[in-house]
């Protein structure tokens, strides 16, 4: 059951990711990215990260990507111009990518035992309570720092966006 679910969501994620890369129109890429995120959220749930799954939905899919789509609409970005793509890119890039993935998979298999597996519900540490506790006790300082970071980001965004270019 777990395996089926995993394969399902993984397939969705990969297909969406490939689509992201292949689509020439930003909106399509954005939506496929949303797809990836949704699939990942479900995988997080499977890994017992309830809070992270929810955060993934709310923050990533709900806020960040909406922002992207917003900008795309605002700029009314069209398709990419078709350029005569250099041949070596396609002929070297794709095998390179495949090789990269293969090696990565190899390394990971070396690193991790195949025996231990993920069973849904066997991880109980991802509950919001746990996250909150460790967020406000162990990682309090980083948390506060991130708040400052966010503040800075907001200011920067406002300044950048509100600047009038003549």
């Amino acid at each position, binding site marked *: 059951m*777990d*395996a*089926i679910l*995993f394969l399902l969501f993984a397939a969705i994620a*990969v297909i969406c*990711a490939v689509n*992201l*890369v292949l689509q020439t129109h*930003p909106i399509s*890429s*954005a939506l496929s*990215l949303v797809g990836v995120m949704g699939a990942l959220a479900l*995988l997080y749930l*499977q*890994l017992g*990260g309830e*809070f*992270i799954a929810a955060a993934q939905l709310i*923050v*990533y899919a709900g806020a*960040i990507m909406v*922002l*992207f789509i917003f*900008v795309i609409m*605002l*700029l009314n*970005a069209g398709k*990419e*111009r078709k350029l005569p793509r250099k041949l070596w890119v396609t002929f070297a*890039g794709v095998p390179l*990518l495949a090789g990269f*993935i293969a090696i*990565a*998979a190899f390394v*990971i*298999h070396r*690193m*991790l035992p*195949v025996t*231990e*597996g*993920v069973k849904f519900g066997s*991880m109980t*540490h*991802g509950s919001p309570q*746990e*996250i909150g506790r*460790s*967020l406000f006790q*162990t990682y309090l300082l*980083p948390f506060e720092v991130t708040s400052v*970071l*966010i503040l800075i*980001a907001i200011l*920067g*965004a406002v300044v*950048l*966006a509100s*600047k009038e*270019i003549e």
Partner: protein
Amino acid sequence: MPEIPLPQSVPLAWYLILSAILFSLGVAGFLFRRNVITVFMSIELMLNAVNLSFVTFSYKFKQVDGHIFSFFVMVVAAAEAAVGLAIILTIFKNRQTLEIDEVSSLKN
């Protein structure tokens, strides 16, 4: 239907491999796409891939830290998106283009 031999429980390695795949796809997007926004989204994809491995390891070690880290990654990504998109807007205002290769005045 033919019986596919599926493990009772999903090996952790699968998750990591998935994350590796997603990451390298993000890299590919970063390299192949020329639209700034798409490039940006490829970065987000990479971040997501990393998050996945974070959560996976946090499952392996039965600790919450991985979740915390991916949470921080999300926060940073949010900040990054805000600023980055603002920058993109400015670039567009300045040059009326989203072609990343036309934003190459840094050279030489």
